[in-house]
């Protein structure tokens, strides 16, 4: 009954072409509809709030009061952005988010640089220069990552007060650097431990010391992990609210704290457009970091070191 078989094949394929080459794919298959349908629904769900924010921040207050939150602005105005940046009042200061922005930058740059520098050396030492008790030291550091921040707030207040850094930006930098240590050390230790140990041995035979191996052999081939650490730290520190609000004073408030003060102010009318613009401004830095550093995620940086 070979005829039935070939008849069936012809009926399914719609013609009598013999199978050859890549199997034809149906574009509108059930799987594809489900897959793309789900993706579209989820993207709309996440992008809609962003759309509302951007649209609202570009409208004037009269237009907002009409209530069509999804409608595009009839008249585009950048006034809310200007106000959010330079004029909005937070507490006694009326110079907008700009003050908080520069405070945050002053907190961010030293915290990120210091924490990555120290943690990478930590990770390198723990991975390549095992000393007596290094595993114990590492375990203690990791446990640090699991202790809730809240339990440490008050002790840190006392410590900062005693060393005279309470309310100072340097104090907050110190706190961020210390709290970044466990996770970053883990990140760098695992990265360095995964590098071929022969490379480390070869560098030792070549007479490179602790710092020589670190700076001239390992760091140049570890750019991706530094980028990952930077992204982690920049987003973490920029978005931090808890430490920012506790360990600073109004003049040194970071941007997030200022944003909160603008958005949650109970005096006067709610300026939704200014709030939206302020929020978008605050979120801009992590966003830019993501977009810029995406390109730096180069794979195969270590290509050619070992058998390849």
């Amino acid at each position: 009954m070979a005829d039935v078989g070939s008849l069936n094949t012809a009926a399914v394929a719609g013609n009598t072409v013999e199978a050859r080459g890549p199997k034809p794919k149906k574009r509108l298959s059930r799987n594809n509809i489900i897959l793309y349908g789900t993706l579209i629904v989820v993207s709309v769900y996440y992008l809609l709030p962003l759309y509302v924010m951007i649209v609202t921040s570009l409208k004037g207050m009269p237009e907002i009061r009409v209530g069509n939150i999804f409608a595009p602005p009839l008249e585009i105005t950048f006034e809310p952005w200007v106000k959010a940046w330079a004029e909005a009042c937070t507490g006694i200061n009326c110079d907008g988010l700009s003050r908080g922005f520069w405070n945050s930058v002053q907190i961010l740059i030293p915290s990120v640089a210091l924490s990555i520098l120290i943690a990478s050396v930590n990770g390198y030492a723990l991975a390549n220069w095992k000393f007596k008790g290094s595993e114990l030291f590492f375990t203690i550091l990791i446990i640090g990552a699991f202790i809730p921040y809240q339990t440490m707030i008050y002790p840190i207040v006392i410590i900062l007060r005693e060393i005279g850094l309470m309310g100072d930006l340097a104090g907050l930098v110190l706190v961020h650097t210390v709290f970044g240590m466990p996770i970053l050390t883990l990140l760098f230790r695992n990265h360095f431990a995964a590098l071929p140990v022969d490379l480390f041995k070869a560098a030792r035979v070549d007479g490179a010391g602790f710092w020589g191996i670190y700076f001239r052999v390992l760091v140049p081939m570890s750019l991706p992990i530094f980028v990952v650490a930077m992204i982690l730290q920049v987003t973490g520190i920029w978005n931090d609210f808890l430490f920012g609000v506790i360990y600073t004073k109004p003049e040194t408030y970071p941007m997030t704290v200022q944003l909160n003060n603008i958005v949650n102010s109970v005096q006067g009318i709610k300026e939704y457009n200014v709030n939206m613009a302020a929020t978008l401004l605050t979120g801009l830095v992590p966003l830019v970091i993501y977009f810029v550093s995406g390109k730096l995620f180069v794979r195969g940086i270590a290509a050619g070191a070992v058998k390849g």
Partner: protein
Amino acid sequence: MTDSKYSVEVRDLDLHFGEVKVLQKLNINIHQGEFLVLLGSSGCGKSTLLNCIAGLLEITDGQIFINGRNVTWHEPSERGIGMVFQSYALYPQMTVEGNLSFGLKNARVPKDEVAKRVKRAAEILQIEPLLKRKPGALSGGQRQRVAIGRALVRDVDVFLFDEPLSNLDAKLRTDLRVELKRLHQQLKNTMIYVTHDQVEAMTLADRIAVMKGGKIMQLGSPDEIYNRPQNLYVADFIGSPSMNFLEGMYQDNAIRVGDLTLPMDGYEYVNGGAKAGPATIGIRPEHVVTGELVDRAPVHARVTVDLVEPMGSDTLVYGDLAGKQLRIRMDGQARVRPGDDLPIGIDPSRASLFDNESTARL
């Protein structure tokens, strides 16, 4: 500087990882300009020993001398060694030139001297056109050449190789093996070479140290190791296909295996000769003769062929002798089929006799 006839001396070396004793009371002396191969299966401690000599592993006890100088507490870079790794371990972000000169720059060698040495190494290894490239743009063979060059520029007396050819494909491995041998003849440095490949060991070595479980089972020239293995382990490990072992009873200068008697006339006894009792005779597959040579052999027998492996240059025949399997290496042109009744000849004076209990050569 008292005893400079040895290039590398290892005295009573112990290395423990916690409870695991990797090396125990190991002694080995390596002559000036010698090519010594450390051979063994994985986990035998051969790479560990090399790392100890290089100073990359902290030893538990013992001493290491290089050129008569006690270097036990010296850093790897201070020991006067160059090392080549299995994984090449080239610095990926540096050019070939950077890789070669890295060690010299660390040692603060003057610039023109660095350039001179890099040029010389590149000439010897024929990698001059590659100097400006990064390791990623090199083939496996080229990378390994650069890795050898990195040891070469250091102008040291002792080269350490940690399975340098294991990552290369078969053809390249053979080519580089010959190149290494030529390099040794040209430079006349002391070379210590770790491998699990017995062909590499046999072809390259002046002396081979066969290792097992952190101990040296036998140290000798390839000829000694191959023809006069000191114990069953070495006899079994060296040679491919491996030696035939026939267990039997030894008595009055002859060994009886099943109903076959092998008189040991002309055999050179060691370790005080043999006593009557159970013993094992080891016969290399190529020492079992066939064809017209059978008539000249002292012992004659017949085997039934049950498997034939033609390999081109020679043919490996599996047969049955006195109830035991026997591997016979025949000429590649020999035409043998399973089921054939094959007359063979054995010369016991070329065989090896081992004590069953101590596994030592008799």
